[in-house]
């Protein structure tokens, strides 16, 4: 069964005078444990699509199912709960909480969203910190670490809740190419280790090649779907 199913997804942005179509009649499926990228030029609808899959926005028309839930029907509180329990987010600007240490940033969703007991929290965070190679940086604050390290922490924070799906909007946009490769490599490794589905958007042509499933968006339409040779999850 597909983890994400989009059936006739349309998203329009409306003002008083005009309607701007952002996504037009998208139909696709994403299988569990796949490593997917949405690519396309600016304004093609990548971020809009990620926002819809991430329950941050609702489609104007069509049906979008994520982890078996029609996310277009969720209310405000249900959306928050769904995001907290099923989804992880990695942001372009890292979006660390500046008053919390690296350890506390990773701990945040476990306390505030999932109410995980202390012992289990500690065990999960230690495992995540080790997995992203930050096990000796837990006590540092975000302003004390580099951009690449922040994105590693963001990956750990996104994965610590054991989500089915991690969404990353331009996760390498603020990183140099070497760090970008390292971050994408880490995301892929985590997919391999944990079986979590990763969906990321990018317009970085070098990074695009790392995706196993590629959806190309042009003017809000799905122009092309590419499968990398030997990809199991198509």
């Amino acid at each position, binding site marked *: 069964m597909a983890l994400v199913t989009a059936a006739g997804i349309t998203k329009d942005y409306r003002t008083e005078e005009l309607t701007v179509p952002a996504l037009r009649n998208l139909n696709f499926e994403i299988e569990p444990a796949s490593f997917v990228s949405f690519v396309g030029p600016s304004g093609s609808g990548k971020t809009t699509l990620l926002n819809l899959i991430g329950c*941050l926005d609702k489609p104007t028309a069509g049906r979008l199912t994520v982890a078996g839930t029609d996310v277009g029907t969720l209310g405000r*509180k249900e959306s928050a*709960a769904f*995001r*907290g329990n099923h989804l992880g987010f990695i*942001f372009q600007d890292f979006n660390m909480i500046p008053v919390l240490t690296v350890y506390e940033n990773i701990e*945040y969703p476990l306390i*505030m*969203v999932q109410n995980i007991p202390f012992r289990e929290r500690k065990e999960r965070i230690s495992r995540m910190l080790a997995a992203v190679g930050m096990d000796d940086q837990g006590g540092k604050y975000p302003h004390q670490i580099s951009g690449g390290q922040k994105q590693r922490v963001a990956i750990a*924070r996104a994965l610590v809740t054991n989500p089915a799906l991690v969404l990353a909007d331009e996760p390498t946009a603020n990183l140099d190419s070497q760090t970008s490769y390292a971050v994408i490599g880490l995301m892929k490794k985590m997919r391999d280790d944990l079986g979590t589905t990763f969906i990321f958007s990018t317009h970085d042509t070098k990074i695009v090649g790392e995706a196993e499933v590629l959806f190309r968006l042009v003017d809000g339409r799905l122009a092309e779907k590419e499968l990398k040779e030997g990809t199991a999850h198509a």
Partner: protein
Amino acid sequence: MRNLFKIAIRNLIRYKRRTLLTASLITIGVVFVLVFVSVSGSFKSMITGQITDSMMGHLQIHRKGYVASIDNLPLNLNMKPNAYQTIRQALAADEQVEAFSPRLKFGAMFSNFTETTNIRLNGIDPEAEFRTVPLLPSRILEGKSTVGRGEILIPALLAKGMKVKPGDPVVIVATNADGSVNGMQFTVAGILESATGPGGRDGYVRMEDAAQVLRMTEPEISEVAIRLKDFGRLAAAVQHLKNATAGEVNPQGQPLFEVHSWEDLSPFFNIARMIDIMTFFIRIMLIAIVLISIMNVMVMAVYERIREIGTIAAIGTPPGKIRSMFILEGFCMGVVGAGAGVGIGAALIALLNLIGIRFDFGQQKGLLLKATLDPPDLLVVSVIVITVAVLASLQPAVKASRMEPIDALRHV
């Protein structure tokens, strides 16, 4: 909750200068309120105590109509002995009454054999009077600490003006209820410190002597001063005594007696009420200070952290927890401001007491003000500050919790 507190406190520390300025503003407000409440409250209590405990008593009972003519000390509006007996029995049976003192008040001429002036006199039973107004003996500046038969206590201003001292003979001449005049020689037993307020410049003689001067076979009573066991229950006691005496009516069916608290009889009560009103407005100012300063800071905090709010909302933080996070920031600022204000305020009041504030009130000179802080006052001010701080945070906090994560994440 512990984690919400941790984040709230760290966010406050994050903007140190702003937090410090806001907390300082609240602290200064609390200090001003506490010092004002303490000094004005202590002044009010002190003067009230002086008035009630040295001359008026907590409340008084008169024959109906007496108070309206009290400046004339009308002898025809005195209570007859049997009427007083009714009052006496009611008061003796009343558990709220600690002591009561009947007084026979009259106006007289005071002569030192060379000069004459007028004087207001109270015929009293010294024992009952001193129990009812226990500060009266402390007003005796010179002479004996009581008054015996044929003796008189006179106010200091009169003694000074008439150049009399304890032991000197004086003559009191009074007109009785029939209009005839009678005179009697007294010996000055003591000089009383003059006090501001009704009765503050009265003299005292024994009840029997007053009756003799006024040619009464049995003393009539002008007023009964009453001291309560619990001054805080004054209003209830007045009402209780009104009810207890309501049954006593004259042949025309009109009430025989009237009950008044010191508040009805002393002009100082208006000053006390002004102090209360000023205290109320000072508290309103404190509320305004806390409300505006916290709201300003919290509105800024929400505006500056829109992307952070978007992040935590996106990763699934329930709106209620986002709201709590900001409310707790306001709460913490309120607690810090109130705590520091209470500490500094208490220290300042202790310092004022150490220095010693002296003031004059009417004829009473060099009264030492002992400023005190009641724990309920501290509690009320602290609760007001913290409650207002939470209320001021409410609107920004609700705004933060209702923010759409997608819009918040886009914010630049």
